[in-house]
């Protein structure tokens, strides 16, 4: 890149390698998809490592990563940009999606189903052979940079059918399915991220396994890997295992007194 021109995506570049432990061949599959700039859906439960995975891939591919957490109030202009007023009149400001499209970043729309369906249709012309982004307010047609890729994440577990992706949106993506890693690997990840011993991590993972058995029996989702890392961090700092699990798992996960009792039971079954 020409050194005279400042990189508009400099802030989105990932300098240090994000820790990611592959559970299968997802890294190779992602690299293949990226070679063809294929749009991707990452599916999986909360806190299983989808965001970390895409950060890791952006780092290893040397691409800037523009992340957007979607929500119901998000409008198309939050993605593509809008006119703002400055000293000389109105001036167009690119939205995060347009930035990534113009300058060749990976745009990651986290929890894409949270955005309203009429907002997500702006990605349609980007995610087929055209690879264009029309900025209708500005009257410009942005052709995607050859390095641009769109990745969205989505959690099929807890959304009601009222909030689902339109089939026309879905069909534009290839999908990678994520789940919590198997016990041994998950314990390694928790041990690494929380900097705790492997045996403590294994106990935490065993609690999480029990809680995941209660999915659809009162829990939308079980204890996630991220929660285990939180618990591990608190235990490392000297908080008692019971208190840290109570704080990071039981109380965080449920308001139902019976469910809380059951979760406390799992903690006690590990830590006495």
């Amino acid at each position, binding site marked *: 890149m020409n050194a005279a021109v400042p990189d508009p995506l400099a802030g989105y570049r990932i300098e240090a390698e994000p820790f990611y432990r592959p559970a299968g061949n997802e890294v190779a599959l992602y690299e293949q998809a990226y070679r063809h700039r294929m749009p991707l859906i990452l599916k999986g439960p909360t806190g299983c490592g989808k965001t970390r995975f895409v950060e890791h891939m952006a780092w290893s591919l040397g691409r800037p990563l523009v992340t957007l957490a979607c929500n119901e109030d998000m409008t198309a202009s939050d993605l593509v940009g809008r006119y703002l007023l400055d000293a000389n009149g109105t001036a167009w400001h690119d939205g995060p999606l347009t930035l990534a499209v113009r300058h060749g970043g990976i745009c990651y729309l986290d929890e894409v189903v949270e955005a309203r369906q009429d907002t997500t249709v702006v990605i349609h012309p980007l995610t087929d052979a055209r690879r264009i982004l029309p900025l209708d307010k500005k009257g410009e047609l942005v052709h995607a940079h050859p390095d641009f890729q769109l990745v969205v994440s989505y959690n099929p577990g807890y959304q009601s*059918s*009222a909030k689902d992706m339109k089939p026309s949106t879905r069909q534009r993506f290839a999908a990678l399915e994520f789940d919590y890693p198997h016990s041994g690997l998950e314990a390694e990840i928790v041990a690494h991220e929380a900097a705790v011993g492997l045996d403590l991590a294994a106990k935490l993972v065993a609690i999480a396994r029990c*809680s995941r058995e*209660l999915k659809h029996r009162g829990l939308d989702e079980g204890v996630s890997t991220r929660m285990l890392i939180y618990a591990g961090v608190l235990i490392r700092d000297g908080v008692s295992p019971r208190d840290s699990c109570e704080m990071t798992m039981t109380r965080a996960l449920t308001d139902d007194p019976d*469910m809380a009792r*059951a979760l406390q039971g*799992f903690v*006690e*079954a590990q830590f006495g």
Partner: protein
Amino acid sequence: MKDSFAALALFARGLAGVDIEVQPLEDHAGRRAVLAGKRLLLPASADRRWHRAMVAHAVAHLRHSRPSRPARTLKPIGIAIVSAIEDARVERLLCRDFPGVHSWFAGSLAPAPDPLDLGFAALVSRMDRVLMLPAWQDDNHWVNKARRLFDETVASAGLEDCDAFRTIASILANDLGQMRVRFDPQHYAVPAPYRDDNSYLWDFGEAETPPDEAIALQQPGARPPAPTDADAANQGDGPLPEGAAELELGRYSYPEWDRKLERLRPDWCTVIEKLPAWQGLWPVREQQAAASNTPERLAPLALPRARQLDRTHRLRRQWEGDDVDLNAAIEVLVDRRLRLRPDPRLFMRPGRASRPSSVLVLLDLSESANDPVHGGARSLLDVEKQAALLLAGSNARGADRFAIHGFSSNTRAEVYYYRLLEFGRPLEAPSRAVIGAVRGRYSTRIGAALRHAASHMRTEPSGQRAILLVTDGAPSDIDVHDPEYLIEDARMAVAEAREAGVRTACIAVDSAADAYVRRIFGWRNYCVADDARSLPARLARMSARLAAAN
């Protein structure tokens, strides 16, 4: 302190990875847990510590024991020893996966017996102790032999190899025979009080009677009078005009969930939609009289409205927004040239409009609703009707679509469904009369009624669609003897409705409703009105919550 049985069932499910039914066992039936298949019965009076140990022990069996092995070739003493060794083996396996449970087991063992007692139960109890507590010392040769053999087998074959443990159990049982220790199978109970009776492990070859699942359709008297029969109307005591009959509007078939088969039985229930018998306008006058007599005058309900983005409605001169409001922007530029302070509110964004919401109040019109409320003259049904009418009245002022339907059932072949107030109809005297005329009869088959109500919701504008069920008891019907069956069916019906975009909530006028209502409708989607008098307020709050939710 105690955990509820629902909490224990969740706990057991989490540890075992399979669904376990946890149910209370009446005290006169003994103080010991019983594990039968995937059903665990726990003595109701035991406290939390015991319950946890009992559940953990049962989970150990479910995870690691081979159930129902033939017992034919074994003598009773052999069965007792094999069971005791198996208990120790599966508990050790469980402690390996869940280190915390060791203290629950160790703290719940039988008290150490008198060292001079060399009876069978005392020896087994001592063996339990040495196998559970590595530091425990015992001076009995047989007990120490048991510990040595057990440890050797763990080292040589591993804990998973249950046949190896069965071999050492035979050796130990044989030793006891040679020591002439008397075994009295009639009076022997497993010494550790938290352990079940081990009937789970054995198949004694008795012919088991299959559970009776027959639907009692053939029973004489189980059938109601034909729907057009004037008998139906005679059950009431109001003045009836000649020829008053319920008009049948249509018949619909719905599936029903069979929890044992774990599948839907297709076309299992017949919902018969009817109009209640027309009885003139007298019930309206009676209602008005009753309402004016009630001491608790009910204030009209003010309901909040659900709102959503509406692009046809644009808010101008906003601090933030998608678009620049051109008129405001021009004023800003003019102000700048004039060196005035411009108004920074120059954006436009879409406004919010209330979204259409359709609420269907489904009244349980079963026989039990005729019970008087707290000794008063009014029946629960009257209170239900009054609350629903009040809610309808407060909705009538707004744009919400509102309907009142009711149901009762008499076997799966006849689930009666009354459309008392249709969506979009004004609440006028005829509707009030129809609502007043409907009576409580028969039973409560919630699942079929919910499915039919959900099918009505399908034609409503999408937005907020909700069914609010008002009931006074658990689902039941005379052709169903398994109390869980209709609860599970109703739970499935709620799940189906949710998938179709219809929220379901319930108000139960039954202080014991907690157990089943939450199972059916889910956490947050129900409330229990202990007192029927609080029903109108709760109904209003629940419908407001449904309308406001996403």
